């Protein structure tokens, strides 16, 4: 009994040319995967295009001035997004100011053997859990727990440092500063996970070399390990920044949606995504178009930040 497909008298070319279902399926399958692989790029373009096409009336109407005006008036159909752009960037930067030291500290802790791995593993798990909690739950926690808790503290800061413009208004229950702190908690897992990977992947010879020169553990960490892992850490910070810029729910629930720039961090503010979340439901016409214009700005902002992060992280992977 021989295999049917391989008749000995048939030459290779004959059997290659003969119709063969597996070969046809394979070819179709190949082109299907190519199609879908290209499709991933198409989706990105499609997203950009669909934002652009709906945003177009607003872009035509307000042009680049949209970015620099402080007005959001559906009645007169006048829109400008300066408060939102300002709020998005400032809240993200404040969030980073909190999250960087905290995140890098935890990353160092998790990459070193300060404690036996029996204790480290559950802590690493808990940090991952931090990433699993949905942003809307963070927002709710902010409303009911965090802001009531932090407000007296901010009140104190206002009393003592009220002469500094940043703290010049009495802390409001919906405000930029507390929102940024919640954002900081939300982006913490990103910084921790990637910084930790970067620290762990530093070649052990570097550490041994530092110890060989008589460095203490902390001298080795601060002068050898962290500098060696720096591009990974910076990449993690950029990715976290990307997350903070795009974060919607916590901002929408906590920041207070004030349509003007207020230099005081304790005053209500707004972000791009918060404004979209809050206004989109009732918006139509030029207002909706303006919201898409805003979304386009957010898309470009996060795209630039993420691509920069990608570039930095990929450089650290090459070194590795």
């Amino acid at each position: 009994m021989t295999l049917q497909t391989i008749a000995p008298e048939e030459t290779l070319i004959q059997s290659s040319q003969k119709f063969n279902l597996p070969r046809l399926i394979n070819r179709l399958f190949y082109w299907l995967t190519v199609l879908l692989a290209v499709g991933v790029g198409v989706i990105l373009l499609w997203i950009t295009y669909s934002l652009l096409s709906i945003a177009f009336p607003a872009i035509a109407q307000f042009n680049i001035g949209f970015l620099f005006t402080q007005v959001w008036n559906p009645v007169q159909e006048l829109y400008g997004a300066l408060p939102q752009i300002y709020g998005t960037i400032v809240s993200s930067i404040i969030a980073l100011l909190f999250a960087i030291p905290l995140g890098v500290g935890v990353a160092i802790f998790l990459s070193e053997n300060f404690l036996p791995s029996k204790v480290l593993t559950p802590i690493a798990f808990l940090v991952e859990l931090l990433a699993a909690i949905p942003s809307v739950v963070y927002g709710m926690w902010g409303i009911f727990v965090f802001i009531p808790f932090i407000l007296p503290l901010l009140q104190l800061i206002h009393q003592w440092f009220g002469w500094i413009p940043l703290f010049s208004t009495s802390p409001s229950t919906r405000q930029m500063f507390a929102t940024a702190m919640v954002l900081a908690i939300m982006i913490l897992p990103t910084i921790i996970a990637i910084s930790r990977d970067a620290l762990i992947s530093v070649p052990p010879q570097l550490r041994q070399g530092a110890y060989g020169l008589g460095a203490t553990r902390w001298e080795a960490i601060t002068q050898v390990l962290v500098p060696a892992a720096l591009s990974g850490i910076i990449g993690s910070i950029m990715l976290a920044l990307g997350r903070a810029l795009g974060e919607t729910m916590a901002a929408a629930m906590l920041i207070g949606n004030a349509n003007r720039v207020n230099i005081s961090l304790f005053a209500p503010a707004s972000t791009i995504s918060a404004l979209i979340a809050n206004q989109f439901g009732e918006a139509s016409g030029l207002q909706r178009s303006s919201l898409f214009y805003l979304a386009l700005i957010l898309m470009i902002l996060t795209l630039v930040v993420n691509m920069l992060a990608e570039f930095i992280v990929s450089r650290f992977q090459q070194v590795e």
Partner: protein
Amino acid sequence: MMNSSTYSDAIDNSAAGHPVIRTENVSIFYGNFQAVRNVFLDIPKNKVVAFIGPSGCGKSTLLRCYNRLNDLIPGARVEGKITYQNIDLYDPKVDPVEVRRRIGMVFQRPNPFPKSIYENIAFGARINGYKGDMDELVERSLRSAALWDEVKDKLKESGLSLSGGQQQRLCIARTVAIEPEVILMDEPCSALDPISTLRVEDLIHDLKQRFTIIIVTHNMQQASRVADYTAFFNAEAGETGSRFGYLVEYDKTEHIFNAPKEKSTQDYVSGRFG
């Protein structure tokens, strides 16, 4: 430097008739790097041909051209002509999958599929269009790989649960099951212990009745034990300084080991190499 003329006598003397595979002036490149240069070599039917030589002499690289496995390596390129039953293997009309159905391969490290022992054999036969009695085929293939007695009670267990030697024989059984005409073996025993090695060598002897076998080996004793013909390859630095492999001598195995024509062959087979 080239000794392409020394091989031809050997084949003309053989009673094998027309060679199954002809290698005519084949050079193999990886990008700009030339791995193998100007090889002429004919493989007679139902014989065992061994490729021996030091590391980097291109013997495995050449072997992988016979079933177009080098197609999978980006940048790999073959010049010259390799024919199988007078058909150019690299003819654009030839489907490489079709080539591999006729020219099977056993690899250096045993690589059973993560499936049951039974499925490891049935899978290849099924995708090659076998419609007969599968149980019978599995048993026959396992018997011809001298593995049946060891596994007949655990055909449903994973192929990965076997020992290294058993895994390699399973891979041979898997190849036998698709009934190719030629079986390529790329150092099939290099990952095995001596006892498993002997079993595989015995197996090669048996398989010779039905298949043409080309075996790459580092082990000269193995070549002298199993092969009818032996090709000795060597490596040399080219003009640009990069090393390339070439065929030194190809003859009946006893000639290669007892009365080689080339000095470098003599040095290699007597262990005085390098």
